């Protein structure tokens, strides 16, 4: 029985507009494949990575600053070369992408939950609650999100005791990036909620005595998820960039668990001595990841936009 429902859902998806539009858009297909490969590579980093860059016993300082394999003095063991401590760049990129993606996804989910909840409340309750929430949103929107994330990070440094800071910094980062991004969700959800609220099916649900929370969850929310998914995809690209930027500025994740941004920061110090690969390869990985997610978001926005059909 359950399988039958699953199958019909899949069937419905395959017959739907979204799949149809996806099939005919080569850019969307390529960026989807690239995104999936990068996520998989990051998720299975311990299995794929040829070396364990964080096992101090396995790295050898004699292998420090080896150029990429195809260059003179390159070593076939290290395809993309090694950094100043002899860690394999390809392996550190895999582990770094892992941290970048974890922070990216977690902060998007955080922003989504906060934004959707406040948007639903704002739109459904209305009145003063609505005015209050939207006023905060307006104020926050007039500042760039990177500045807000930086401020939250700075304040957290003051509040959290020093010895706990390294352990907690990744959560602080997720919180900071998440908080800096909730407004987009809240505004979109509020707008759609205002529209849905007055439709007959919601009125009917209210009349038969369904609780407001249930109405919001079962009836209103599914109707606002389309635009939310578009925002979430584009926000994911932005969150990854923000994380990389904060880590590059030295206020993100600690060097013991480097993200792509941290790797670029570390490599940047060796740029002038000619060891360009330490910083450029993590940078390329970051750009490919962000570009693929951005293109996917662009496609999704066009595909879900009824105006363009």
């Amino acid at each position, binding site marked *: 029985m359950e399988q039958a429902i699953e199958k019909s859902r899949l069937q419905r998806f395959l017959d739907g507009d979204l799949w149809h539009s996806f099939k005919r858009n080569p850019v969307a297909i390529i960026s989807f494949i690239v995104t999936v490969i990068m996520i998989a590579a990051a998720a299975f980093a311990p299995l794929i990575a040829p070396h364990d860059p964080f096992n101090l016993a396995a790295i050898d300082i004699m292998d420090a600053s080896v150029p990429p394999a195809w260059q003179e003095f390159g070593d076939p063991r290290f395809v993309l070369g090694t950094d100043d401590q002899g860690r394999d760049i390809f392996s550190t990129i895999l582990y770094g992408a892992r941290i970048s993606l974890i922070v990216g996804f977690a902060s998007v989910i955080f922003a989504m939950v906060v934004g959707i909840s406040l948007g639903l409340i704002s739109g459904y309750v209305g009145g003063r609650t609505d005015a209050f929430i939207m006023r905060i949103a307006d*104020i926050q929107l*007039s*500042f*760039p999100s*990177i*500045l807000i994330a*930086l*401020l939250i*990070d*700075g*304040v957290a*440094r*003051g*509040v959290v005791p020093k010895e706990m800071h390294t352990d907690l910094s990744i959560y602080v980062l997720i919180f900071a990036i998440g908080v800096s991004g909730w407004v987009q969700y809240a505004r979109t959800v509020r707008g759609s909620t205002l529209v849905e609220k007055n439709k007959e099916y919601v009125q009917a649900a209210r009349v038969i005595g369904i609780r407001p929370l249930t109405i919001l969850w079962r009836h209103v929310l599914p109707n606002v998820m389309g635009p939310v998914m578009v925002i979430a995809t584009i926000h994911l*690209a932005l969150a990854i*960039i923000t994380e*990389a*930027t904060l880590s*590059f*500025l*030295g*206020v993100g994740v600690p060097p013991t668990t480097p993200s792509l941004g941290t790797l*670029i920061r570390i490599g*940047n110090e060796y*740029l*002038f001595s*000619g060891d*360009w690969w330490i*910083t*450029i390869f993590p*940078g390329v990985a*970051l*750009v490919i990841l*962000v*570009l693929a997610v*951005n*293109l996917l978001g662009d496609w999704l926005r066009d595909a879900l936009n009824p105006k363009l059909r």
Partner: protein
Amino acid sequence: MIAFIFKRLLQSVVVMLTVALIAFAMFRFVGDPVNNMVGQDTTDTERAQLAESLGLNDPFIVQFGRFAFNAMRGDFGISYKYRRPVSELILERLSATLELSFVSAVLALVVGIPLGVYTALRSKGIISKGIMVLSLMGVSLPTFLIGILLILLFGVVLRWLPTFGRGDVVDIYGWWTTGFLTVSGLKSLILPSITLAIFQLTLIMRLVRAEMLEVLRTDFVKFARARGLPDRAVHFKHALKNTLVPVITITGLQLGALIAFAIITESVFQWPGMGLLFIQAVADVDIPIMAAYLVLIAFFFVVINMVVDILYYAVDPRLRADAAV
């Protein structure tokens, strides 16, 4: 019109008060201000005296009032790290950030608008498609990475341009230092300003292109063509003019963003501006500097937003008509 400006002014005051409240809360409750100002061997009585003289025992609202009043006069207290007045530290670096932001804004406009017009008019051409792909790269490349790539190319490989600092600067009026008047100052400006401009440039270009395409489809443009006006007149007198209204808004708002994004650029190029001061303050938990920077940036944003809104109102007659109804 007067009522509109007054309402807008009131809103701005509310925003500034909110930001000031956040800044004050940061100063008062993140860490202990007294602990941050004194050394290890200060006695408890001395600490109590300092707390009293700072007014930390007064009621919250009194303290906030004092903070807001002092902030209005530009007094943000003493930096924990430098042991100097925050206002002095910021003033020293203000000119560096403003010059960098100004050059980047001009660059973004002067390159962005023509590119946007070109890609809209020849939207099917190969060059336009190429520019659009490049602009997508511009959106996906983080600012700091653009900076690193420019440093690698022009600083390390070609060795054409300086990659850190402002070069030689000239003092004017005592506190304003400018890099515009020396060769090394101008050379130092090139890479940071390109880095800072690229994101805004792509944004303005894509906006002008989108607006232009929209306007070109409208009836009045078709009508102008039907009247037999030459392409040049239709494109620049009818289409571009109507495009520029939203462009003014976005550009104005982006001016504030430029000052904020300068944090990243200044950090990459070790540019001695406010942004670099701020990022070091975040790393050192130097709260007075963070609070002052927040208030200052908020002030820039509020002023820019207000000017843009009023300009918009003055430029677009439709808005005034709406208000009258």
